[in-house]
């Protein structure tokens, strides 16, 4: 037993066993079996045709781009791509499902037996991926007079989303803590963003997560009875739902009770999981091979073609940032956690003239310092402003080139660090380059010794009591005097010069 496990054993009286099932909407142009657009939104029932509406007599035609994307995701998750796979019908009645069956992949998925590496508290761990399969999304119901179908006065169906391609990624029950579950989902999201098969927007439902959760006494080999959790629409919801569910099951087990095998729904408002249906009430989906589609045969060449489109994966990119620019591993991890952020960093490095071929370390410390500057600004100011806005790294109002423009002004001493912060906020709000803002507002740093010396002398003359304090050994008085000088120059005085000249003048007195 590792130290870590022993630590956990002390913390909690059961071992947690979890597996995640993640549904991801593929960002293809058209739907999986028809030519309708997959665009999010749009007036109700405008992105539809007889095929996705399942009108009598229509037939599906598989969109090859969906196969490409599913394969790409499978390869990025280190899966084996099946030479022969097929589609099946999953039959059930619901008004959002116009054919009363969902076309999915049952026993022969396109990809299987992969893995994904995560890190929790500095410890690496490998989580197995059981399978990745393709399927079609259902529509959306809007209920009148109630939140759910039960109790609604009426319900309206919107089929815009019907037939949007999905992949379902099923993990092995390898996850042993809530932190691991969150880390798994974060890493999965990051990898999928890198492959660009999905925009992974949880709030728009393009990434949805279900979890199988069970507990067992430490040391027991067999799995406990699991509950399947649904409807967790954010990382926070996943975390809260798992915390609730683990505690719920633990309480039952502590009291000698039995866990029921059931499907439970996370209720965000109530902050609890609620039983949806028991094992006995589970649907019999009557899966059988979809007779309207022919089996999917994937050649080696096809796989190779898709493999060639895989981008540099996050962990490789992280190593590159550490090796080439000497970034701390933590910083590199955050930057490469999202492809858009990592792309931003690379573009900025290029604009700052410090880009370097993969695997090559940048030549000098100055280049490393510049990369560090970029990284610091991104992880600090830029991320803060982006998080508070509707923008992201892919469409940041401050472009990588403009960020570098600001850093260049700093490097040249044209503006002070303090002014830079204000300028940056202006840049974010207006989208203008730093130079334009600095010139417009006259924010150029005053580095003229004569000018600053005269200001310093004025301040000393105006504050004799403070000067006396300083002479009496009160170091704080210095801070006040610097502040006065900065105030007098609206923050534009070079703080180094102010310090130096103040000391010189005080010594003279």
């Amino acid at each position: 037993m590792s130290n870590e496990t022993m630590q956990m054993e002390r913390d909690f009286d059961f071992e947690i066993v979890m597996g995640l099932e993640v549904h991801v909407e593929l960002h293809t142009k058209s739907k999986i079996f028809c030519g309708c657009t997959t665009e999010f939104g749009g007036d109700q029932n405008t992105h539809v045709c007889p095929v996705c509406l399942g009108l009598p007599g229509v037939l599906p035609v598989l969109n090859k781009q969906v196969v490409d994307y599913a394969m790409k995701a499978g390869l990025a998750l280190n899966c084996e791509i099946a030479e022969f796979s097929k589609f099946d019908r999953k039959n059930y009645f619901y008004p959002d499902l116009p054919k009363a069956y969902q076309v999915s992949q049952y026993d022969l998925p396109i990809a299987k037996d992969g893995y994904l590496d995560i890190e929790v508290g500095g410890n690496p761990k490998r989580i197995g991926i059981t399978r990745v399969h393709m399927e079609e999304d259902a529509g959306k119901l809007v209920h009148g007079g109630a939140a759910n179908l039960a109790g609604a006065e009426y319900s309206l169906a919107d089929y815009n989303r019907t037939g949007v391609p999905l992949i379902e990624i099923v993990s092995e029950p390898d996850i042993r803590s809530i932190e691991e579950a969150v880390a798994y989902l974060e890493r999965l999201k990051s990898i999928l963003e890198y492959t660009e098969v999905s925009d992974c927007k949880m709030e728009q439902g393009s990434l949805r997560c279900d979890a199988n959760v069970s507990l067992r006494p430490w040391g027991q080999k067999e799995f406990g009875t699991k509950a399947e959790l649904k409807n967790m629409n954010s990382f926070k919801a996943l975390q809260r739902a798992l915390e609730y569910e683990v505690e719920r099951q633990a309480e039952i087990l502590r009291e000698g009770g039995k866990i029921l095998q059931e499907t439970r729904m996370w209720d965000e408002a109530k902050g609890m999981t609620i039983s949806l249906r028991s094992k006995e009430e589970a649907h019999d989906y009557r899966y059988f091979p979809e007779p309207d589609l022919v089996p999917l045969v994937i050649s080696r060449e096809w796989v190779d073609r898709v493999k060639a489109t895989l981008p540099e994966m996050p962990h490789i990119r992280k190593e590159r940032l550490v090796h080439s620019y000497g970034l701390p591993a933590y910083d590199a991890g955050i930057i490469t956690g999202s492809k858009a952020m990592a792309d931003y960093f690379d573009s900025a490095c290029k604009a700052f003239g410090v880009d370097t071929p993969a695997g090559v370390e940048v030549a000098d410390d100055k280049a490393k310092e510049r990369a560090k500057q970029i990284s610091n600004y991104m992880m600090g100011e830029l991320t803060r402003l982006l998080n508070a806005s509707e923008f992201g790294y892919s469409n940041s109002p401050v472009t990588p080139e403009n960020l570098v423009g600001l850093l260049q002004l700093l490097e040249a001493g044209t503006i002070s660090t303090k002014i830079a912060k204000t300028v940056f906020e202006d840049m974010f709000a207006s989208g203008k380059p730093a130079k334009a803002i600095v010139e417009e507002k006259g924010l150029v740093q005053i580095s003229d010794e004569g000018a600053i010396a005269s200001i310093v002398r004025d301040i000393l003359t105006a504050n004799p009591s403070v000067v006396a304090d300083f002479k009496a050994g009160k170091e704080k008085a210095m801070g006040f005097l610097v502040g006065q000088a900065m105030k007098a120059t609206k923050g534009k005085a070079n703080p180094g010069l102010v310090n130096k000249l103040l000391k010189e003048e005080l010594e003279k007195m």
Partner: protein
Amino acid sequence: MKLYTKKAHELHDLLVNKEISAAELVRAQAERIEAAEPKVQAFITRTFDDAMAQAAKVDAKIAAGEAIGPLEGIPMALKDNMCTDGVRTTCASKILHNFVPPYDATVVTKLKEAGAILMGKCNMDEFAMGSSTENSRFFATRNPWDIERVPGGSSGGSAAAVAAGQAVFTLGSDTGGSIRQPAAFCGVVGMKPTYGAVSRFGLVAFASSLDQIGPFTRDVRDNARVMNAIAGYDLKDSTSAPVDYPDYEALLGQSVKGWRVGLPKEYFGEGIGPEVKAVIEKAVKVLEGLGAEIGECSLPHTEYALPVYYLIAPAEASSNLARYDGVRYGYRSEEAPDLNTMFKKTRAEGFGEEVKRRIMLGTYALSSGYYDAYYLKAQKVRTLIKGDFDQAFEKFDVLLSPTSPTVAFKFGDRTDNPLQMYLSDICTLSVNLAGIPALNINAGFANGLPVGLQLMGKAFDEAKLLQLAYAYEQATGCHSQTPDLGV
């Protein structure tokens, strides 16, 4: 001139030679439909106004000296399970009684492009489930040879319309014999093409892996002509076959001397009526006289065709018909207080007995715990049945059998006993399970009723079936008779 007895190729010549106009032809066709309809009842929907407008266009083309295609201006009708843009498509079901598709089936598009003129939509067993057209939720169609007898099914309306002169040709669909058996009962030519030869896009699905569209005609040449128009690869149907399709009509008239024709002994067993057997044996003699080499063969898994069919077809149907839930189109029960009751009542009221029986059979066969024993096992046996044919075709070019064990039966004879009704199809089911083509032609008559002869071929060997049938037809003149409806 009785235009309604004429074939498409004869009418084409009359149009080209300006002996008749398309408008005259369509008008005469409409009159014939109305005259025969009180006795035959083949049509659910008539589209005469559109037909007249189409005819005017064809006449304008002829007047302008433009060439017309082989089916241009020819009046035809469709089984009411093929979607027609703007024209009600009911599947003879209450649940689709008001369904108007916003699109054409691929076969409809192709026939429109060929200039054929739609006169209406034909009656059928509800959702193509049945062998007598008695399962139509609207009315029963009668056999033009004896209106106290059934026309066969499920494409009974399409077969009767051609026999009664109500259309020059029609299309039907065949899932287990639904083209060939009514063609046999009505004494017309009916082709069930190879699975994948004719697009299923727009054909309201019964059993997706078995359904296939094909033509009813008054002679073999017309059948080849319609096949030319409708066969071919279709991007909208993933199960459609990307192969080269021949000019079926151009291949007619060749000698069949030395062709090896196999008689599967399982198709001549106990269940076959003696009057049918006698006519078929006579027909075999005719072929022998034309130089064909006749031999016996065996399709040993034939006895399993019926159970296999009644697992696979209902299983697929149970899923295909699940979409008729009253939510989006078609019939909806108005008395439901909640969603599940709405589903249940809509389907209970909207579907007829036979459809419900098959949905239940299929749902059961696919249920968890039964899937392996029923559906999966049936698929395995299906492979064996296909293997039987592969072996037989190593020795024979074409296989020959009766199409139906009996001639047309009387109304109500088999409605109380579903199993008895299912047995009507024992000669035709295996062909659908194997996916191969088969053709019915009229072999002769027994007690004034037509007896059908079935020719079965290798996948995509429709041309051979048509050639052999054409030789038989030329030798016997069996296609020249028309039932006398007294109208």
